[in-house]
Each structure stands twice: as structure tokens, then as C-alpha cells.
């Protein structure tokens, strides 16, 4: 496919039988064996996802911390070295430019952003004052996510230091011998426990082959593509940029108030304070649909015959074995089990609101 970037795992994907698709300017694996198969394997065992398309930005210099504090909705001062925080980057009017994970290292900060928003964010950052040194490490590094109930036990056996000692949203820089350095983050986007690993491009395939060739218990690890990643995150109630999150949506309406600190100063805070003061108009909610048909992004949500909202994501849930969706509805209709209807392409789907997430892994507190 012309003009598309390839990750260091491109040859691996082809050998593993992936069907490649264009995604945010990258040639990425949609699936290997099948979306449902890969989804269920992640819930039951462990999968490895190539997420090298995601943007990786390094911030250094004295202004890095105050700059990121101004750019991000989350109060990063509350994080310690070795901790990662999910945050939004907003426009002045509170519209979401991207959702990111910001990690505090000893002498620098690291941001993982959406592939489709990387260049937009870099341009946005450059319009502000006191910009620190920002290095785009996206094509110099690789990133994989290893997710599933067996992911952490597996990683504990193969990595030099145990991942099980890391708290959620914490990370550690590890080394093999002296040559190979990589960072292991206890985070993910599937609703499962697991880790995300960033390493240099040269070590990437060594690591992938090592992980996948492991014998015995480790043979459970299988590759999974973007298709399963999408249905997994939907079940876990996690928003996706371009669907639940856009520049026309604010983080409070998106249900991300926990990632917004209205007490600190940042770009967009004035608008978000006004929105919070006035009360939300609409809110993101889950929807469970009766019958076999799925809702899709863009379909209208109706109460009776009245147009009240819009679907942002929808699919047949492989775990629940019924169609699930996420959409925006007026706040007074967002309480769980509110009956609503969805205007499908050829008919009406009966649905009811449902609290997110649809799926919580056993033992998970939040």
C-alpha cells in the first residue's frame, strides 16, 4: 500500500498471516485468525498487539513539566517518577484534541498519543510559549501491548524484573545484558491486565520472536490485530478518538471527569469550568441492544420518534454475545436501563442504556 508507514513488525505480520489495512497513515494488521477468535483468546489467555503506530513523544528541558501541565487536563504534579497518567489535551473551548498517556521519567517526560493525532498535537504544541524540546520517537521505537489474564505471569517469567511488582499505571526501565533497553508499562486498552512495552526498533523483532517462541505455558501468547483491539476496548467502555472523543466533545460529557483537574490551570480549563457550572447537556453512555443487529457509528438514538442522540461505536460483543454500543444522550436519559431506540439503516433497534464498562475482568476494583 503506497504512502503508508510500516512498523518494525511488518514482516512478522505477513508471516503470521495478517490481513493488513490502512489505519491513520500506517499499514497495520486488522486480524490474523479472526476478530472474535483473537478477542476471546485475549479474554481467556493472552495476546500481543503491535501498537507501534501510536505516537511517542519525548519532552525534555526545564519547561517540560510546566508546559505539559498547561497542555494536559490531568494534574501531572500528583504523579511520581515511574508513574503514568491518562489525560486529555484540549482546545481553548474544551474540545478534545487527543487522549494521551503521560509518563514521568527521572529527567524527561514521555507522551503516548493517537497515531492520527500525532502531527496535529506537534503543531498545536508549537503554537504555545515556553515549548520544551520535543523529540518524536515514533519511528525510532516500537511498541507492543501484551494483554490478558495470563499476560503478567508470562512476562514475569521472561523479563529481567517482575511486572507483577509494578502497580497499574506505573512503569520501569529494564535491560537485557547492557545492550537492550526497554520500558515496561503496566497498562493497556483491552480491559485486561497486562503491559505495554516500548523498545528500540532493532530489538523489537528479537523480543517478538522470543515472546512468541516461548515453550509450554508461554505458547498461549498469540498475536491479535486492531479489529480485536477495538471490540475489546468497547467492552471495557474505553473511549476511542474519532468515535467517542472528537474536537466537538468535551471530557466531562465524555465521562472522563476523573482525568480532569478543574482546580489547576490548563488550556481549556475556563471553558470546562463553565460547562461544569452550567451542568452537562449530554453524556456518553453504554447501550445494550435487543436482537441480533448491531448499531454503528453515526446512527441516530431516538426516544419514541424524537432524535435525542448519536451512536459513536457499536459491535457484536464477543464476550457478551449480544450487540453493544456507546453513544451520547441527554443527561436525563443517561441513567442505566432507560429504554431508547436506534435508527438502523433498514429498521429500528430496541435498546436500553447501560453503565460502562460492559465487561470488567474478574477481581478488578475500578
Amino acid at each position, binding site marked *: 500500500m503506497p504512502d503508508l508507514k510500516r512498523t518494525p513488525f511488518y514482516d512478522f505480520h505477513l508471516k503470521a498471516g495478517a490481513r493488513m489495512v490502512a489505519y491513520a497513515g500506517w499499514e497495520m494488521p486488522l486480524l490474523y485468525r479472526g476478530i*472474535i477468535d483473537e478477542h476471546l483468546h485475549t479474554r481467556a489467555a493472552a495476546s500481543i498487539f503491535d501498537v507501534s503506530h501510536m505516537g511517542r513523544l519525548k519532552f525534555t528541558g526545564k519547561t517540560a513539566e510546566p508546559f505539559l501541565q498547561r497542555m494536559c487536563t490531568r494534574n501531572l504534579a500528583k504523579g511520581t517518577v515511574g508513574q503514568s497518567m491518562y489525560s486529555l489535551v484540549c482546545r481553548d473551548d474544551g474540545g478534545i484534541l487527543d487522549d494521551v498517556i503521560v509518563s514521568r521519567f527521572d529527567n524527561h517526560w514521555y507522551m503516548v498519543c493517537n497515531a492520527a493525532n500525532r502531527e496535529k498535537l506537534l503543531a498545536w504544541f508549537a503554537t504555545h510559549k515556553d515549548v520544551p524540546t520535543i523529540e518524536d520517537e515514533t519511528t525510532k521505537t516500537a511498541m507492543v501491548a501484551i494483554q490478558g489474564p495470563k499476560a503478567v505471569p508470562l512476562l514475569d517469567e521472561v523479563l529481567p524484573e517482575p511486572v507483577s511488582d509494578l502497580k497499574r499505571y506505573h512503569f520501569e526501565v529494564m535491560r537485557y545484558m547492557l545492550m537492550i533497553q526497554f520500558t515496561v508499562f503496566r497498562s493497556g486498552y483491552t480491559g485486561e491486565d497486562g503491559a505495554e512495552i516500548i523498545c528500540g526498533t532493532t530489538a523489537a523483532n528479537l523480543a517478538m520472536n522470543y515472546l512468541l517462541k516461548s515453550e509450554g505455558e508461554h505458547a498461549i501468547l498469540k498475536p491479535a490485530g486492531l479489529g480485536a483491539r477495538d471490540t475489546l476496548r468497547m467492552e471495557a467502555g474505553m473511549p476511542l478518538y474519532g468515535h467517542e472523543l472528537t474536537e466537538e466533545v468535551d471530557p466531562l460529557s465524555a465521562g472522563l471527569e476523573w482525568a480532569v483537574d478543574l482546580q489547576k490551570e490548563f488550556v481549556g480549563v475556563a471553558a470546562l469550568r463553565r460547562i461544569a457550572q452550567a451542568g452537562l447537556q449530554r453524556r456518553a453512555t453504554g447501550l445494550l441492544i435487543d436482537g441480533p443487529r*448491531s448499531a*454503528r457509528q453515526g446512527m441516530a438514538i431516538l426516544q419514541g420518534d424524537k432524535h435525542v442522540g448519536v451512536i459513536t461505536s457499536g459491535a*457484536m460483543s464477543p464476550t457478551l454475545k449480544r450487540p453493544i454500543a456507546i453513544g451520547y444522550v441527554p443527561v436525563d436519559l443517561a441513567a442505566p436501563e432507560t429504554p431508547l431506540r436506534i435508527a438502523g*439503516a433498514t429498521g429500528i433497534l430496541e435498546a436500553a442504556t447501560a453503565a460502562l464498562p460492559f465487561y470488567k475482568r474478574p477481581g478488578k476494583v475500578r
Partner: protein
Amino acid sequence: MAAPNDRKYSASHEWHQQQGDVVTIGISRFAVDELTDVTYVDLPAVGKKLDAGKRFGEIESVKATSELYSAVAGEVIDVNDALKADPSLVNQDPYGKGWLIKVKAPGADLSALMDGAAYTARHGE
């Protein structure tokens, strides 16, 4: 894998197999692979009259919903009820057990459609 040559293919990826007055319709392996795992197939009732080139149903996968088109006019005389219980038959066997509908279409002219070789050349099955 080449598309079988015992049927004809439309640009919208439905195959049409003519046996006497009856045309059986399904979708190609290429289309099935594009769709990913099929989760639901919405098919017309027996007795429904179809127009050539018009939509007769929808097929849903985990990923997307797509429309189904018939290249022939006629009356639906059978639908594949097995797909209600197991829509993944379309993935497993698109040219066999995953057929969709049978249409009574005496004298239907399929000559404008692609044969298996032409369809394979176009979509590299």
C-alpha cells in the same frame, strides 16, 4: 484461492449460480474476508419480489454492516435458514453452506457478470 468458475460474480461481490429457472446467490470469499466474522444476515422473506441491481438484504460482521444486491429480478423461493443459528457458515463456506437466497428468475441473463477467472483477476483471490 480462485473463485469457482461454476457461477458468475457481480462488482458488489455477490455470486450468482444459475440452475434452470433458479439463481442461487451468495457472497464471494474475497467479500467475506473483507467483512471479517459474520454475526448476522438480514434476508428477505420467501415470496418477496426482487428487482435487478437492488438491495435485498444486509450482512453484519463484528466490524461493519454491508448491503446485499441481487443482479437478477425474480421471486425469492428459499432463504438459508441455517444462517440464523450460525451466521459464521458464511465465513466457513461462502460458496457452499453459506449461500444466502434462491431466486426464481426464468431466463435471467448473467452474461454481464464476471466469471470466476475475471473476478479472481480483479480481486486476487
